[in-house]
């Protein structure tokens, strides 16, 4: 059994007076893929944003509970927020490329500003990341161009390459395949499998089939409540809760 690397305890998220997450308790195992499924508005993205504390950025939002990682509570006010976000790399549903930076600068930006690499090593790291995401052959001649010319799928892969350069300890992926084509979806799924050999991957998806296809464990969220979590095969074959069964069989959502 894989070691639990992260423990979420009684996590609650509020946006002004509205409760978005309700006492979520969840363990994340090392070098495993955890998918979070649920209908739109169930709190999947909020859960990811609570982990890297992006959720608190907006005025009126607040988080309660504990998230333990390597013996430290990530929600503690003493935790270095910037370091936390470097370690918990996040990819969004919509590719977040920066239009005023070249493709090379887009990938190197986080690494350079966080002083993870410097000088010639930056170029090597960018090349390595692009090879890993399968874009090197296509982009090696166009690294000085701007990302506007890239397709949505290529932009998403550039964002993944950028995250890889930050050498994350956990990868958070928020419906990363929702705006890309089939080919890139399969490519990203393969990448997620590769990443899980090095660090845990938590990804949210609205696609039940995708969760069943690639994840080791699955958690089902509904209206901010964690209904069920377990091995993916168990959850899909023998759900314990009727709401889980209704969702995975497509009765709602």
């Amino acid at each position, binding site marked *: 059994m894989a070691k639990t690397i992260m423990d979420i305890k009684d996590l609650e998220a509020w*946006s*002004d007076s*509205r409760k*978005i997450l309700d006492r979520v308790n969840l363990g994340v195992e090392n070098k495993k893929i955890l998918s979070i499924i649920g209908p*739109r*508005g*169930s*709190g*999947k*993205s*909020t859960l990811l*944003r609570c982990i*890297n504390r*992006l959720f608190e*950025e*907006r*005025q*009126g939002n607040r988080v309660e509970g504990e998230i333990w990682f390597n013996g430290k509570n990530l929600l503690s006010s003493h935790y270095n*927020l*910037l*370091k*936390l*976000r*470097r*370690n918990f*790399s*996040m990819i*969004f549903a*919509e590719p*977040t*490329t*920066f*239009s*005023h*930076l070249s493709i090379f600068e887009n990938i190197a*930006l*986080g690494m350079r*500003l*966080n002083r993870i690499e410097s000088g010639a090593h930056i170029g090597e790291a960018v090349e390595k990341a692009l090879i890993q995401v399968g874009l090197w052959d296509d982009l090696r001649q166009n690294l000085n161009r701007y990302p506007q010319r890239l397709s949505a799928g290529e932009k998403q892969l550039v*964002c993944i390459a*950028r*995250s890889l350069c*930050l050498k994350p300890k956990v990868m958070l992926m*928020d*419906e990363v395949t929702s705006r890309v084509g089939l080919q890139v979806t399969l490519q990203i799924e393969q990448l997620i499998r590769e990443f899980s050999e090095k660090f845990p991957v938590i990804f*949210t998806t*609205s696609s039940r089939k995708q969760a069943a296809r690639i994840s080791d464990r699955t958690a089902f969220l509904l209206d901010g409540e964690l209904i069920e979590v377990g091995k993916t095969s168990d959850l899909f074959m023998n759900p314990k809760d009727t709401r889980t069964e209704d969702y995975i069989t497509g009765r709602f959502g």
Partner: protein
Amino acid sequence: MPRREFRNRTNHSMMLSLYLLASFSFILLVSYLLVLAFHIFYNISLSQILQDMTYLPETLGLVLISLLTAAPFSGAATYIFISRKHTRSNPGIRRLLNWLVRTPVLLIGVGFLYVFSGQKIIMFTSLFFIGAIKLSQRWIQISEKIRSLEIEGMQAMGLSRAVIAYQLFIRRYYKTYGGHFVSTFLYLVALVTPFLFLFSDSDGDFHYLSLEFFFHIAKDQQKTASLALVFVLLHLLRAVLDSQMNYHEVEYG
């Protein structure tokens, strides 16, 4: 929270900040115009007004001279406010504003004021208007292109707010107006020149930033207070920038 409501609330806080800034600035602008009108129609030189202030109760004198110094900010802030509030839904106002803040139009206005009043200080202060308004105009054009997702993308990489502001605002400014070095330089010069009046004596002669004169300034409570007020206004502008940074249109799932 429905997406629209969420957006409206964040928009509301930003608009409130701008509204407060613009209201405050509008009062300053009116005060400035009153002083100007007094000078033009009663043919009393501005240096005389400034001298007379020393006979006023100290607090009132401080307030008046501070208003005079801070007035140019009001033009910029009011411009930002009007642009933000009305131009998206009303292209006519946008066209009118863009025409009004064209450099030749502003320069003709300054020339007119100078000929009419014969005062160097009015010319310099008006130049400050131009610098502040033109740079504000560009800032708006830049900030409108920045997507909230880009801000989140940078936050997710563990970059600090200062770095994000530099990357998204300053670097993008240079990317967008890279070929406009001369105009940017002139606007900055225009922005700085009115401060020289703080270093002038009662005859209107300038003492170019000598250390000796700087100490003389430090002893002058009115001028020190003016500078302090300028810093307060800069702080307010920064608050507006912060509210812009908090403006997320993120849809939470």
